[in-house]
């Protein structure tokens, strides 16, 4: 075997192992089957390890060198391990049947296969796995050769690695030519962590493995969210559809590249799944907050998207209380408030870190959107610029070699399954999916060259929205499937029994 492949897996493991240990702290995550738990673990690992290094480097001047990196990796790993052992011991002491629970658990591959639910989901998962393996092989075969990665993120990573700090002199000194110096650096810090931990050559494309790993993570998170609301079949088909979208793998922003769009899509999507999922808990709120904090440190759009997710979580916890009160109280107000606070705290910390770090960096070679926004370009640009960028948005989304017809199919499925969006949770997912494109729309409205910027960024906004979009699609697909079943049943059953046999939407949404 080519030694580059195990090296790539080791790079992924640098975040996946401590992240997996961290999932032990969150009951909802630790109960998930191993592949899905590992996906959340990877995201938590990147957010925790790279985020902590970002903080330690900026706040305390801790050098980004192997001792700090390995300590940052070891602390969550050991904490998770200790917590897990203590929990198991506590369970044993309580006299529960741990062994029986272990047997029911999801550590055995045979259990995962049985859990998939049949040959069609299995086939979907096999194709998705093949695509992900191919992507990892490509990442380990070739150097970084994307556009924005080399222009911004990877160059910043080299400055940070050489300086040993996120406050690198090159980034903070206005004389030096640095594009987008105020872009958040979570992923470049992750790159530095991998390169330093394994003492890799600066030209090593080991870091590409980190980005390639986000593709299976995206698919698993989307599957997790979709399966909980739309069932195994719809979730598997949606994963197959996502895995075969060429842009997700080869687009500028996809797993092929070292852009921060795919990681942002994963952080935002995973945070939403935990925040908007059924039967949310406070611990899920902390995990969602960590993931949304990761989103804020990943890309400029991460902070507004995190705030949108928080607002949707707030709406879910408090907004429908009056209506829900007529049936049953889903969550006491104090619990709901604690849960929202649990989400908001890590997001606020990440925002404070980002603002503090940015304050020492003169902005240059950047669009400076806040300044454009203050200069009052949003109106009437939000209307008048549409003529310039509107047609381009369609052109980008309907490019066959990038999307293979995905955007021909998706609106038709959403339209056919629109009744599914009577459910508030499904509506919130649609709003969440509209968030990234709305940010893009606002950016094009104030930019002096909206055509150029739309041509190179619109597809990335679609990628950022992919997880809530895919779950919404699964909702709609399950609804369409239900329509066909109903028609079949109504043909078979006597007319008198038709009304009684129609299952409600809620029954379908409870499907597991």
């Amino acid at each position, binding site marked *: 075997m080519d030694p580059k492949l195990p090296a790539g897996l080791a790079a992924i493991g640098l975040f996946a192992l401590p992240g997996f240990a961290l999932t032990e702290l969150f009951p909802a995550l630790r109960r998930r089957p191993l592949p899905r738990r590992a996906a959340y673990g990877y995201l938590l690992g990147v957010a925790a390890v790279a985020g902590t290094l970002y903080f330690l480097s900026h706040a305390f001047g801790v050098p980004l060198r192997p001792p700090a990196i390995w300590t940052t990796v070891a602390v969550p790993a050991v904490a998770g391990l200790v917590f897990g052992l203590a929990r198991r011991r506590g369970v044993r002491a309580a006299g529960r049947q741990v062994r029986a629970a272990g047997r029911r658990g999801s550590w055995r591959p045979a259990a995962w296969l049985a859990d998939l639910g049949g040959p069609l989901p299995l086939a979907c998962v096999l194709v998705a796995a093949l695509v992900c393996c191919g992507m990892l092989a490509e990442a*380990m075969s070739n150097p970084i050769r994307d*556009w924005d990665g080399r222009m911004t993120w990877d160059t910043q990573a080299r400055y940070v690695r050489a300086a040993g700090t996120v406050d690198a002199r090159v980034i903070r000194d206005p004389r030096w*030519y640095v594009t987008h110096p105020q872009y958040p650096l979570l992923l470049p810090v992750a790159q530095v962590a991998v390169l330093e931990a394994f003492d890799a050559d600066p030209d090593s*494309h080991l870091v590409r493995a980190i980005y390639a790993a986000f593709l299976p993570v995206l698919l698993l998170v989307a599957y997790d969210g979709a399966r909980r609301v739309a069932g195994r079949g719809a979730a598997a*088909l949606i994963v197959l559809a996502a895995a075969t979208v060429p842009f997700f793998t080869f687009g500028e922003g996809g797993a092929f590249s070292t852009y921060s769009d795919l990681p942002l899509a994963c952080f935002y999507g995973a945070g939403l799944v935990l925040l908007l999922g059924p039967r949310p808990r406070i611990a899920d709120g902390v995990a969602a907050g960590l993931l949304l904090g990761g989103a804020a440190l990943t890309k400029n759009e991460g902070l507004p998207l995190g705030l949108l997710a928080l607002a949707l979580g707030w709406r879910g916890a408090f907004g429908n209380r009056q209506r829900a009160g007529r049936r049953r109280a889903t969550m006491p107000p104090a619990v709901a408030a604690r849960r929202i606070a649990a989400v908001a705290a890590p997001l606020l910390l990440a925002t404070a870190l980002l603002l503090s770090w940015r304050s020492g960096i003169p902005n240059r070679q950047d669009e400076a959107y806040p300044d454009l926004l203050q200069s009052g370009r949003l109106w009437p640009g939000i209307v008048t610029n549409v003529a310039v960028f509107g047609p381009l948005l369609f052109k980008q989304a309907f490019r066959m070699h990038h999307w293979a017809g*995905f955007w021909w199919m998706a609106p038709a499925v959403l339209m056919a399954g629109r009744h599914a969006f009577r459910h508030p949770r499904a509506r919130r997912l649609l709003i969440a999916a509209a968030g990234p494109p709305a940010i893009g729309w606002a950016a094009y409205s104030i930019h002096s060259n909206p055509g150029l910027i739309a041509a190179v960024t619109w597809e990335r906004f679609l990628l950022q929205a992919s997880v809530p979009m895919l779950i919404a699609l699964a909702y709609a697909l399950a609804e369409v499937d239900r329509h066909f079943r109903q028609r079949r049943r*109504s043909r078979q059953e006597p007319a008198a029994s038709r009304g009684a046999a129609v299952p409600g939407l809620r029954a379908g949404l409870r499907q597991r």
Partner: protein
Amino acid sequence: MRGSVVGLLLDVVAVALFGIYLVAAVPLAIRRAVNMLRTEAQVAAGESLTDARARCFGDSYTRAIDEIRKALPADRAYLLVDGGRPQDGDAYWVRYDLAPRPAVFAGQLELLDAARLRRTIEGANLSDLRQVVVAYAPGVPPRLYDLASFLGGLARRPGAAPTPDQPGAPRPATAGAAAGHGP
């Protein structure tokens, strides 16, 4: 609506488009994935980093970058000039390859004026700047120049900026950096 003809039509169109999408996308995705695995196994297995870079970016470009890296210490600043077209991103790729060396971007080669550039360098407290790197089109090796000879070359050719193969272009500071593209 669910029982109506329109509802049925919408459902059928949705399922048909979903099916067509999968029929179109799945074989392509499988073929691409298999090709990537084959490339890893047949081309990239056991390949050194330098060989991988040479395969992707060209041998002469990779050698030129390595020569410039040897000539410029990692903390030494340089003046970056774009000798190609801005839309090709040449200056970005060279800056990435030479990072962490700090760069000062001078602009497009064809638009440069020696006197103005000299004033800019002096005014911007960049007196320790000694070298110039000119990036050309993708795959074409970049070149390293002494600042003085570069400015001299520019001054001798007012209004007509030097290109890599034109007579009168500034002489590269290192022979290796100019491999294959000497004036």
